C-alpha cells in the first residue's frame, strides 16, 4: 500500500497557472476525490502525479520515494484517462491486456485477470470488438478495466464514469469502491460530480481556479464548508447564501459574531435545514417544485434566491407568502468579501 504526497506543486502553461501551490497527502489505501468545476485543474493535478506532465515547482512523493523526475512507468501507477486513450486497432481484450503483455505477466495470470475484469464491468460479450464498435459508456468501461487489471497499488481515475447512465454509474461506483478496498489500492478519483465524491471518497479535495478550496472528509465538507464556494458546491439543491442584512432584527437568527455589524457578512442555510414557522422571516414564493418525497420552494430573501425543502406536498402557489426559520446551529457565517467561513 502506497501513500501519495503532493508538496507545493504548481504548473503553469505559458505563464498561465493551471495548478498553483497545491499540497495534500493521500493515506495509503484511501480513496480521495478531486472535486471541482470544469477547468479548475483536476486533470492537470492528476497528470502531474502520473508524470505525464512535469510540475513547474514542487515535489511529488509516492510511497515515501520522491518521483518528481521519474518517467510514468517507474511510478507504479495505473490510470484511467478522461479521453479513454484506447488503442483503436486492438480488440477490447487486447486493449485490456496491453500493459500486462508489456510487463510479461504469464499467460494464465493474464487470462484470469481479464476474465475477472470483464465480468465485473460487464464486458464479456464485447471482448472481440474494436473500440470504434462500442458506445461511449462501453469504451469508458474498457478504459476502467485496463486500469483495474494492472492491480497497481496506486490508481488514478479521471472522470471514469462521466459517460454512463445513472443506473450503471451507481453500480460502478459501488464496484470501484469495493475493489479499491479489497485490493487496498490508493486511489485519486477526479470528478465534477459532487454526489460521486461524497459517496465514494474517504476525503474530498475541492479545487477552484487551480487552488485547493477545502480538503476534508465528506461529512466535514457538508457540515462545515470552509467558504461560500464550498458551501454552494456541495449538496443538492445548493446551500442558500444570502447577505446577512436580510436577517436584521431577527434575534433568533443572529449569533454573537454578528454583533460587529451585518453589512460585511453573509449567511448560508441549507434548504433541508429550513422549516416553515409562523415566527420566521416572511418571504414570497417565486416557484414551487414538487419532487415526490418533498417539495422545493423557491423564494427571495435579501434580493437573492432562497430555496427551502419541505416534506411532502404543500398546498401553496407562487405569490403567496410563507415564513422561513432555522435553528441557529444550522446557519453558516461567511465574510462577504473573502467568502471565507468565520464561525
Amino acid at each position, binding site marked *: 500500500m502506497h501513500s501519495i504526497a503532493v508538496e507545493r506543486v504548481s504548473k503553469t502553461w505559458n505563464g498561465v497557472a493551471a495548478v498553483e501551490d497545491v499540497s495534500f497527502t493521500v493515506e495509503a489505501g484511501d480513496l480521495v476525490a478531486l472535486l471541482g468545476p470544469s477547468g479548475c485543474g483536476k486533470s492537470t493535478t492528476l497528470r502531474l502525479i502520473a508524470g*505525464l506532465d512535469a510540475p513547474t515547482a514542487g515535489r511529488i512523493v509516492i510511497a515515501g520515494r520522491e518521483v518528481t523526475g521519474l*518517467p*510514468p*512507468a517507474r511510478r507504479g501507477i495505473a490510470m484511467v484517462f478522461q479521453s479513454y*486513450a484506447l488503442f*483503436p486497432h486492438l480488440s477490447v481484450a487486447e486493449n485490456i491486456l*496491453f500493459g500486462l503483455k508489456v510487463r510479461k505477466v504469464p499467460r494464465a495470470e493474464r487470462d484470469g485477470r481479464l476474465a475477472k475484469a470483464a465480468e465485473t464491468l460487464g464486458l464479456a460479450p464485447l471482448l472481440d470488438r474494436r473500440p470504434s464498435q462500442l458506445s461511449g459508456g462501453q469504451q469508458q468501461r474498457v478504459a476502467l478495466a485496463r486500469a483495474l487489471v494492472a492491480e497497481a497499488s496506486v490508481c488514478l481515475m479521471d472522470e471514469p464514469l462521466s459517460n454512463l447512465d445513472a443506473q450503471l454509474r451507481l453500480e460502478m461506483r459501488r464496484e470501484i469502491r469495493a475493489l479499491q478496498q479489497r485490493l487496498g489500492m490508493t486511489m485519486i478519483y477526479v470528478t465534477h460530480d459532487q454526489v460521486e465524491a461524497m459517496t465514494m471518497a474517504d476525503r474530498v479535495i475541492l479545487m477552484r481556479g487551480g487552488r485547493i478550496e477545502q480538503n476534508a472528509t465528506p461529512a466535514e465538507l457538508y457540515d462545515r464548508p470552509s467558504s461560500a464556494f464550498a458551501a454552494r458546491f456541495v449538496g443538492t439543491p445548493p446551500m442558500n447564501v444570502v447577505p446577512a442584512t436580510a436577517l436584521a432584527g431577527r434575534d433568533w437568527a443572529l449569533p454573537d459574531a454578528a454583533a460587529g455589524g451585518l453589512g460585511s457578512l453573509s449567511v448560508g442555510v441549507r434548504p433541508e435545514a429550513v422549516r416553515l414557522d409562523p415566527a420566521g422571516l416572511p418571504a414570497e414564493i417565486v416557484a414551487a417544485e414538487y419532487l415526490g418525497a418533498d417539495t422545493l420552494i423557491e423564494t427571495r430573501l435579501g434580493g437573492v434566491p432562497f430555496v427551502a425543502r419541505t416534506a411532502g406536498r404543500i398546498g401553496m402557489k407562487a405569490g403567496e407568502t410563507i415564513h422561513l426559520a432555522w435553528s441557529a446551529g444550522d446557519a453558516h457565517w461567511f465574510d462577504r468579501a473573502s467568502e471565507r467561513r468565520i464561525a
Partner: protein
Amino acid sequence: MKSRLSAAVHGWLLLLPAMALLVAFTHWPAVASLVESFTSTPRPRRPSRFVGVANYEQMLADPVFWQSLVNNLRFALGTIPLAIGLALLMAVWVNDRIPGRTFARMAYFTPTILPMIAVANIWLFFYTPQYGLLEQVTAALGLPSHNWLGSRETALAAVTLVAVWKEAGFFMIFYLAALQGISPTLAEAAALEGASRWTFFRRVQFPLLMPTTLFVLINAVINAFRTVDHIIVMTRGGPDNATSLLLFYVYQVGFNFWDTSYAAALTVVLLVMLAVAALVQYGWLERRVHYR
C-alpha cells in the same frame, strides 16, 4: 423526375472538362498504344499494317528488354523498401518533440521539391570520377578510386540510391501527417503501462500507419516503374545497358530508334504490370490493413 434528370446532366457537364482532358491525354493514348502494338512501324515506303503478336514475339527474343526488366525489378526492390523504411524512420523521429524539428522536417522534405533533373545533376557531381565528392572522401581515406556510374557493378546501385534520396522525404510527409492524427494520449497510456519506445512503435504506431503504408507502397511501386529522368541525365542506360529501366528502354526504342510500334508493345507490357501491381495492392492488401 425532370429535376433528377437535369441534376444528372448538370453533374456530367461539370465532369466534362476534366474528363475531356483525361480521355485526350490518358485513355485514348493507352488504347491507341494497344492498337498500335499489333501493327508494324510505318516506314517511308512501307505503310503500317497488322502484324498480330509479332512485336511481342520480338520482345521475348530481345535481350535488352529482359535486361531492362531485370534491372527495373532490382531497382524497385532497392528503392521501395529503403525509401519507405527511411521515410518512416524520419517521420517518427521528427514527430517527437525534439529541438529543431521544424528545421529537420524541412531539410528532409527539400529533395522532394527539387526537380529530378537538378537532383540528378547534384548526384552526378557526387559520383564524378577523380574530383567528385565521393572520390574526394574515399581518396582522403586512402581507398582506391572507383568510377561509380561508369562500371557495370555499381551503376544500378548508384542510380537506385539517388531515387531513394529523392523519394524518402516525399513519403515522410504522408507518414508525418498520419502520425499527427494519432492521439498523443495513446503514447501516454502506453508509457504508463511501461511500454518502451520500440514497443509503442511496433504495437501501436506501426499498425495504425498501415493504411498510409499501403498508399505509400502503391506510389513507390508506380514510381519505381516510371522514373526515367535521372537515368537520362546520369547514365543514358549505360554502361552496357546496366542501368536501362523499362521506361527508359521504351523511350530509347520510340525516340532514338523510331520503332514506334515496338515501343507501343513495350508500353502495353509496362501498363499491364503496373495494373496488376495496383490490383494486388488495393484488392488484397487493403482488406488486411484497415482496422476500422
